[in-house]
């Protein structure tokens, strides 16, 4: 039971990170029907920017651990959001009217560009986050000792997801984003500036991805310039699992994938950890290509 709960909390924490990244994939797919293959690299940029900002400003001298993390998160999210918006403007908008495959190739190109830029700036070796920022406390949960950091990761991700969900469901702009995802032309006829909606999506998605990158840095302590690839693929799998284009789907898919992966690693073999993810991807594509929450209502013509 102890072992199981450890794996469960670990899976949920990792899964909540997948979910944050998956939201970026699914929102962009929702409005543009494009898989933003550079999204994983935006996540990696978030991890590196977090490291730079942390060491550059010596934040730990002025603020307590909680303050450091909050200030850091806001800065990283803001900066990665800007990178995302520039990416949309430079790599995707000029191809809006072109064949869909052109934009996919452009996304791949952007991914290679970001990865190599990170390598040139930071070097190819692993980078290590200072390990004295976060408290090492453990908390007792149902009689099991769980690292506090793990719970904080889970809590922060869930809070961000709830905030996003409320934003999308309750606000005027959120409704406009959903409308543009359903029918761009009809959205334009409502007076919605669809270009601006797409820009907003490319601010929010990367901001969440950047936050996820920072969390991975803080949680695992080491980062690498290729990390965006594997996390990106896993988050992409999570988005497909939940139903691509569906925002609650990405959240559920991410958490579920994290738990499946943790359980597989614990009870089968740790060597199979990544393979399990892709078995899930293949299985869902065969059995239910629309994902768990995909396509709720058939439209009447």
């Amino acid at each position: 039971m102890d072992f199981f709960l450890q794996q469960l909390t670990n899976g949920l924490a990792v899964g909540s990170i997948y979910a944050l990244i998956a939201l970026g994939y699914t929102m962009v797919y929702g409005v543009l029907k494009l898989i933003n293959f550079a999204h994983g690299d935006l996540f990696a940029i978030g991890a590196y920017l977090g490291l730079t900002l942390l060491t550059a400003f010596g934040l730990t001298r002025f603020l307590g651990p909680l303050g450091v993390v909050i200030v850091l998160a806001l800065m990283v999210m803001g900066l990665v959001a800007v990178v995302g918006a520039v990416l949309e403007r430079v790599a995707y908008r000029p191809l809006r009217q072109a064949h869909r495959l052109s934009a996919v190739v452009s996304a791949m190109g952007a991914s290679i560009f970001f990865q190599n830029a990170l390598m040139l700036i930071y070097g190819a070796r692993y980078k290590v986050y200072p390990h004295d920022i976060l408290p090492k406390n453990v908390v007792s949960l149902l009689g099991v000792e769980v690292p506090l950091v793990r719970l904080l990761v889970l809590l922060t991700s869930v809070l961000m997801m709830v905030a996003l969900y409320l934003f999308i469901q309750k606000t005027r702009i959120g409704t406009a984003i959903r409308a543009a995802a359903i029918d761009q032309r009809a959205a334009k006829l409502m007076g919605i500036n669809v270009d601006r909606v797409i820009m907003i999506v490319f601010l929010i998605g990367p901001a969440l991805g950047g936050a996820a990158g920072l969390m991975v840095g803080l949680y695992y302590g080491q980062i690498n310039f290729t990390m965006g690839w594997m996390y990106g693929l896993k988050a992409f799998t999570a988005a497909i699992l939940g139903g691509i284009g569906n925002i609650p789907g990405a959240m559920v898919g991410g958490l579920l994938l994290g738990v499946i992966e943790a359980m597989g690693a614990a009870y089968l073999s740790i060597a199979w950890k990544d393979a399990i993810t892709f078995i899930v991807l293949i299985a869902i594509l065969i059995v239910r290509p629309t994902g768990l929450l995909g396509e709720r209502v058939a439209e009447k013509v």
Partner: protein
Amino acid sequence: MLQVENIHVSYGRVEALHGVSLDVRQGEIVTILGANGAGKSTTLNAICGIFKTTEGAIRFEKEDIHTLAAHAIVARGVAQVPEGRRVFGTLTVRENLNLGAYTCNDKARVADNRQRVYTLFPRLAERVDQLAGTLSGGEQQMLAIGRALMGNPKILLLDEPSLGLAPLLVKAIFETIREINRSGLTVVLVEQNARAALKLAHRGYVMEVGRIVLEDTADRLLADPEVQKAYLGGAR
């Protein structure tokens, strides 16, 4: 109020409109008739800025609008009820109506418009929390019209509002259009159902392969032997 002057619109290399001119005056119902592919919908979408003109000009209340983006044209008071209704199926009726008022920041005005739409279509009031995709075809058409009215437009462009509806519903929809027009809204109506459209409209245009070929008052078009032969199923 609305002047379309010699506009040309192309899909890729194929030109769909070869110089279309229209004139719509305040308070009128103007209908555009024509066979499939004549360019009626293209004309409406050019007015709304969905398709860009390659030549010619569109003026609304003396302002050039063909250079504006679609959302900016809507903000000036041009609303379209698109062909096939295009309601947002996975959003609720309420959300669809709210989106219709997207350009309107005045909350009291929006509430007024909502009340007006509910009076016009009581069915929508009963189904505010239902997903639009689960409505019947007729209800979806009501929603599409109601949604367009939410933004307080000065001119309403309707593209085939009778498409796929039962005759009784068509009659009701046309009656509603007359009512909306009487309340002061200018209407442009594109229709396959030429007889009903001409009975409702003040004036009409007939389009053939991307051009206007005929323009007259609705009464005279109804009586025109050529129009009768081509669009009204022969003389009666």
